[in-house]
């Protein structure tokens, strides 16, 4: 009897366990999220082709986007065209025709047109195309990055706010070049703000061609001709270093307010704090990267095909001055490198 009871007891216990397991499984089934997430994303290949891997933006993206892609079980790769438009086109072409085609292609395009046909081909081959930072004439699945016109407006407004109406109301602008959308759109932003503020004029403008020495020489010449300029907008923090050195050389560092844009790496905060830059609109790299990560996750789960939707994810950006800098305003290249070495 006792044996029978024992056996029965065991059977009941085992049954209960099974039932419990089944209920557990049912509970899991009632939240399909993690499994759907995992199966849609695991093993997906995401490749980034920036203009070069050798600058702060690309290294930041590589860290902030790459880490999360690896986290959800995806395969993360980068290609380094080292500023060559041709090498970038070659890399994208190879990726489209390779046996291990990427599922998502992230490209920082160098200009408005160069890669437009390749984007179409990639989408036809079943690859989602995310354009990052620099817009082009081709609307791909996602554009993530700055609204450069808005960014130009923020820079110009920062200069006007600082100078005030009692100043000379003259500004100078150091542009990048005349082909890159980020430069052309910032210039449009400058114009838009000047239209809203009658009486303000651009006393001088020049292209830096993204070179700090050229920026310095141009700024020195403009300041020489117009020493009463009260503020300068420079379209990139690396060239703004050259512009700042022209301002220093002219002995005008206390009079001229320099507004620029950059990735928000620690050097930007340092230059803001030591007064080299008056204001900076950073591209908010960590949040921008998070937008890209979200786009990847949504595209791969949505069931839509590449080319079926066009989305624009503009990063919310603000102009910051010295008083807005907190210890976590900027991200640190050194910290990323240290993390990569672990």
């Amino acid at each position, binding site marked *: 009897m006792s044996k029978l009871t024992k056996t029965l007891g065991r059977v009941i216990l085992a049954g209960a366990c099974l039932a419990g397991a089944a209920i557990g499984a049912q509970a899991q089934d009632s939240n399909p999220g993690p499994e759907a997430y995992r199966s849609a994303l695991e093993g997906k290949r995401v490749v980034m082709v920036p203009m*070069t891997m*050798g*600058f*702060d933006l690309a*290294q930041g993206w590589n860290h902030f986007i790459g880490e999360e892609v690896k986290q959800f079980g995806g395969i993360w790769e980068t290609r380094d065209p*080292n*500023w*060559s438009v041709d090498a970038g086109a070659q890399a994208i072409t190879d990726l489209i025709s390779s046996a291990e085609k990427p599922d998502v292609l992230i490209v920082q395009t160098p200009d408005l047109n160069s890669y437009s046909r390749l984007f179409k081909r990639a989408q036809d081959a079943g690859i989602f195309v995310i354009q990052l930072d620099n817009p082009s004439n081709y609307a791909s699945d996602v554009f993530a990055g700055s609204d450069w016109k808005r960014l130009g407006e923020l820079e110009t407004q920062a200069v006007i706010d600082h100078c005030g109406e009692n100043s000379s109301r003259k500004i100078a602008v150091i542009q990048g*070049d*005349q082909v890159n959308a980020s430069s052309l759109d910032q210039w449009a932003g400058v114009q838009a703000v000047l239209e809203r503020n009658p009486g303000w004029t651009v006393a*001088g*403008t*020049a*292209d830096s*061609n993204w*070179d*700090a*020495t050229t920026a*310095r*020489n*141009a700024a*020195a*010449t*403009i300041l*020489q*001709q117009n020493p009463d300029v009260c503020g300068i907008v420079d379209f990139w923090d*690396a060239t703004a*270093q*050259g512009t700042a*050195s022209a301002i*220093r*050389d*002219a002995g005008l560092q206390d009079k001229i307010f320099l507004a620029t844009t950059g990735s928000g790496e620690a*050097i930007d905060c340092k230059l803001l704090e030591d007064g080299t830059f008056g204001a900076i609109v950073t591209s908010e790299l960590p949040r921008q990267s998070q937008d890209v990560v979200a786009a990847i996750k949504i595209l791969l789960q949505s069931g839509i095909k590449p080319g079926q939707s066009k989305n624009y994810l503009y990063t919310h950006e603000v102009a910051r001055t010295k008083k807005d800098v907190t210890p976590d305003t900027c991200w640190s*290249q050194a910290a990323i*490198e240290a993390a990569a070495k672990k």
Partner: protein
Amino acid sequence: MPSSRPLSRLFTQETIVLLMAVALFAGFAAALPGFTAPANLLNIVRSVSVLGILAAGMGIVVIGRGIDLSMVSIMVVTVAIQLQLLQGGWALWSASAVVAAITIGLGAMNGFMVAYAGVSALFATLASSAFVFGFVRSQILSQDVIYVPPSAETLLWLGKARFLGLPLDVAVFLAVVAVALVLLRWSRPGRFLYLMGDNFQAARGMGIPVRPLIVASFVASALLAWLAGMASAISLQSMNTRLVNSALLYDVVLVVVIGGIGLSGGKGGMRNVVVGALLIGILLNGMTILNLPNIHQNLIKALILLGAIILDGQLNPRDEQTSQQGDI
């Protein structure tokens, strides 16, 4: 053509370029208010001083009938290593000593390839340029732009200091031109360099140590490249290694050639470098005041330089010796 000799003597390429520079200067001075202000004249010289230092180095090599296409690469690489060492807490003097050794090594490497391995200077320096930059950029540097660290106070101070009212890069340019001028004109190796550039076989035959001389000329250009880079980095408080991909190297060759140091060797001197650099400086400065966009500036620069070359070709037809030896 005996009758055309005096005319061609009068209108050497150097004189043509000088006249062009003067004409441009007069034109800008009349049309643009403030162009002749002393500060703007300083801007003109300053905008070409780094270019001028590089062109002085290139000029020395070209006079010896070589060419150094690795100058810009050596410039960014040596300065980037130096700034990297400073960031790592090295003292300025020890970092400079290490980089000086590296620079001499790189110049000597170019020189040995040309003088002893018999590789043409064009290909030897083209290859070493790509190799040196590729190696250092991939193995040592993690970023395109290297900043002068705040701890390097001497360098930051030099950036703000003035020497007889001149910024450091201008002072260095003038000093380099003066020293090179004296060495080329009055020193024994300087005279030998001209002889070697003019006729290599004859120079060798008369016992000039041509191979060490070639090595020395490449070491000089490497050292001047480093100096140019430091002058630029001190002024900008950073070094952008991406300069390697820019048109800077072509501008250097342009200044040398347009100034009148013929690529066939043995001709010209530091005066030509100054004239060539000034033409470029006046052009760029005037066009910046006129707010011309970069693409138009490049177009106008190219047209004026092309004009100078064509005019020179008309006034100074190629002589028999050049057509036998050929240019580079």
